[in-house]
């Protein structure tokens, strides 16, 4: 009897457990993107899992939120969602009660076997052509290679100013025109709406137009005649000025190009066409890319030999060579040198030389260094009637960066710059600490200090914050402190603040606003310290469109 009662109790307990188990049936708490297209995601959850049309899902990749999508259509167990994502992205399902799913309509009875066989034979016998996609030719004006930027800039300071400039910049980078020709242009139209104080740069020209490039060019990738006409920035001719003329060469399939160029060199200050300065010469260039497994991943070698004639430099024969090589991902090397012989110089001279090194022995460690020598004394117009001579200089810097962890980077920078005309120099060195994930996915911060020595000795330190969320918005904020103790002692302090906001407003437009502020003062007066403190700042705003 007791055994029977015990059996009944066990049965009842089991029944209760099964009922409670049904009530607490493990509901899905998350779903997954099964398949993704450029605009649409296919989800493995549907109305039975609580999804509703119009609801928004936050997609995650691993532990990181990556994007969101809006539910477009829902079936019982599947849904589609409008947004960007990848297969495998996950999302959290709402705990709201799932929809009541009506009984599915009774499906039609299966076709008779004979009908199935008949249809199969029809299909098998049907002729079909393979689909081959041919994209429609894009309208060339909207090739995405044209960028137009409208900008405004203001420079203001407590005692002088302000200066205001409106600017329209246009860059066309190879807009196809047919016949293998493309248009390249790079120009800037500027208008000074306000200037004050002594003006050095073109004081009589409040409206200015600078054209660096306006050329029709063809450079077929498969080899052949390479040609450029107009205001040309010669390709593969290192150290060459822009010219009003042409460049013609022959390009092989293996990326070897050689040819000639020549024309008038525009005025250095106004870029007005002029044949007062001119150049002509030849160039030779090789560019080679290795296979993914090759040690030598990239080689670039360019040479220019040219004759130049200008009021500043006289008649000169110049030879310049540039070489760059990338060995795996470990080492990047670059070198450049220019020698010249001129009728105003007693012997051949080394006009310029530079070496650049990028060394990454490990993925997390990089060493970047460069040395630059400029031996040519550069005559430079300094306002109306004033011409300066000088400019010989050398500069070297090295930066070491170690990514200790994904959230911590240690860097060090050091450099030396020396003016060889006057002998005055400036040296600097200091550490930088980067915390790129200090605010998680939102962004990070960096802290730096640099000690300076030389004609302008002192020190400076800064704190910088950088955010990248949402993805279309980047905000950079920096607060700096500068101290200079060798310019007409006593020590001078300055405080600086910089803010930059970049917003990608859709696929074709971008907005950028940056502002810089400085506070300093007369000798002995602390920044923001009352009488004698001086304030100033700059504002730069631009709206860019890409077509």
């Amino acid at each position: 009897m007791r055994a029977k009662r015990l059996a009944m109790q066990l049965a009842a307990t089991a029944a209760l457990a099964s009922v409670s188990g049904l009530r607490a049936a493990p509901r899905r708490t998350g779903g997954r993107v099964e398949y993704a297209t450029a605009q649409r995601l296919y989800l493995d959850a549907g109305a039975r899992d609580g999804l509703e049309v119009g609801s928004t899902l936050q997609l995650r990749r691993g532990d990181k939120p990556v994007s969101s999508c809006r539910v477009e259509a829902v079936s019982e167990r599947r849904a589609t969602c409008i947004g960007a994502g990848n297969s495998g992205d996950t999302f959290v399902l709402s705990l709201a009660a799932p929809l009541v799913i009506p009984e599915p309509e009774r499906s039609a009875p299966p076709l008779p076997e004979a009908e199935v066989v008949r249809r199969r034979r029809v299909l098998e016998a049907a002729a079909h052509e393979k689909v081959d996609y041919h994209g429609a030719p894009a309208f060339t004006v909207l090739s995405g290679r044209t960028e137009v930027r409208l900008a405004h800039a203001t420079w203001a300071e407590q005692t002088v100013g302000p200066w205001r400039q409106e600017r329209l910049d246009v860059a066309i980078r190879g807009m196809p025109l047919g016949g293998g020709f493309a248009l390249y242009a790079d120009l800037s139209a500027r208008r000074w709406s306000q200037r004050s104080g002594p003006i050095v740069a073109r004081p009589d020209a409040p409206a200015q137009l600078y054209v660096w490039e306006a050329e029709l060019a063809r450079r077929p990738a498969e080899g052949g005649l390479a040609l450029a006409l107009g205001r040309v920035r010669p390709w593969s001719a290192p150290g060459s000025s822009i010219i009003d003329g042409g460049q013609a060469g022959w390009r092989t399939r293996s990326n070897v190009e050689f040819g000639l160029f020549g024309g008038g060199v525009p005025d250095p200050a106004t870029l007005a066409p002029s044949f007062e300065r001119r150049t002509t010469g030849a160039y030779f260039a090789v560019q080679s890319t290795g296979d993914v497994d090759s040690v030598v991943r990239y080689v670039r070698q360019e040479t220019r030999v040219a004759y130049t004639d200008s009021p500043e430099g006289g008649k000169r024969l110049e030879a310049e060579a540039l070489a760059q090589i990338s060995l795996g991902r470990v080492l990047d090397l670059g070198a450049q040198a220019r020698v010249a012989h001129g009728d105003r110089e007693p012997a051949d001279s080394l006009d310029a030389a530079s070496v650049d090194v990028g060394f990454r022995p490990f993925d997390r460690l990089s060493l970047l260094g460069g040395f630059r020598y400029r031996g040519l004394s550069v005559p430079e117009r300094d306002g109306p009637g004033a011409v300066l001579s000088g400019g010989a200089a050398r500069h070297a810097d090295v930066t070491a960066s170690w990514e200790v962890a994904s959230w911590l980077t240690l860097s060090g920078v050091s450099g030396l710059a020396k003016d060889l005309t006057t002998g005055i120099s400036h040296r600097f060195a200091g550490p930088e600490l980067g915390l790129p994930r200090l605010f998680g996915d939102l962004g990070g911060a960096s802290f730096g200090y640099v000690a300076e020595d030389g004609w302008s000795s002192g020190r400076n330190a800064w704190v910088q914050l950088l955010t990248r969320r949402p993805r279309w918005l980047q905000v950079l904020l920096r607060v700096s402190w500068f101290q200079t103790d060798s310019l007409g002692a006593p020590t001078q302090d300055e405080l600086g603040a910089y803010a930059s906001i970049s917003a990608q407003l859709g696929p074709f437009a971008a907005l950028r606003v940056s502002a810089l502020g400085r506070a300093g003062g007369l000798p002995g007066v602390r920044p923001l310290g009352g009488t004698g403190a001086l304030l100033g700042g700059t504002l730069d705003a631009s709206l860019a469109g890409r077509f």
Partner: protein
Amino acid sequence: MRIALLVIGSLVAGPAAAAAPAGFWQGSTPPPPLPVSRQTMPHGMGDTRCSVCHSTASWTKVTFDHDGTGFPLRGRHAAVTCSSCHASSDFRGAVPTSCAACHKDVHSGELGMQCASCHDAESWRSRFDADAHRRTNFPLIGRHALIPCEECHLDQRDRQFTRATVECFACHRADYLRAATISIDHVAAGFGTGCRDCHNPWSFRGGRFPAHDACFQLAPGPHAGIACLDCHTALVGFGATGACSTNTASCTRCHFCPTMQQRHQQVSGFQCKDRKCYECHQFTPAAALRPGRLR
């Protein structure tokens, strides 16, 4: 139609799903395999999992997670077509990460390979600002940080940012000469051209004149920062000879006589005359800021 769907389905689902369902072709001879050539398989023969990059929404809108390649596509790089960087559509060729491999260098190679020092992938617009200029031979201190770049870099042509020299006088020659009309004729006074010996980069006003301190200390102290002509009635023909005598210093322009007479009631022999002030009050480094005393 079903075959077409199967073809599309196999493209979408990958090679595992490309095989026809078992028994589908039973009872009939399967059609010959579709001709496959490099022309129809542009990415080579190795991988037919089209869905890795393509989708049924559009053949041309390609999605590919580029992060795994070691060259994450950030900024404008995310918007360019694959063929802009990859010369061959089989993606076998290595693509150099060096900027110059793809981009024409507007600096004619003169500024080296490290484009990222000034530019980023968002825009070619330079990020090089006044703070970054401290890593050159000319830190932008004071007002220099607040003027347009082209006021110093006049050569617009070659974008190499040359500057003849960093010596102050090279740019401020006109200011040196202009001083004759607004304060002291620097040429007549025999002042040197080392502007920073006296002036700071925030303002020419309040110039520090170290030689002046030997006669009458200006800074630090209550006279710091005042203009020369606030005290001196005229400095025409003034020469910095170190003689401590210009006979133009006028204390009473600021220190008004009625006030001074009241304050000096107990000082015998007091006369409200500029020369007399100086006989008692000597703001020299030795006397510092102490009030004047009878000699």
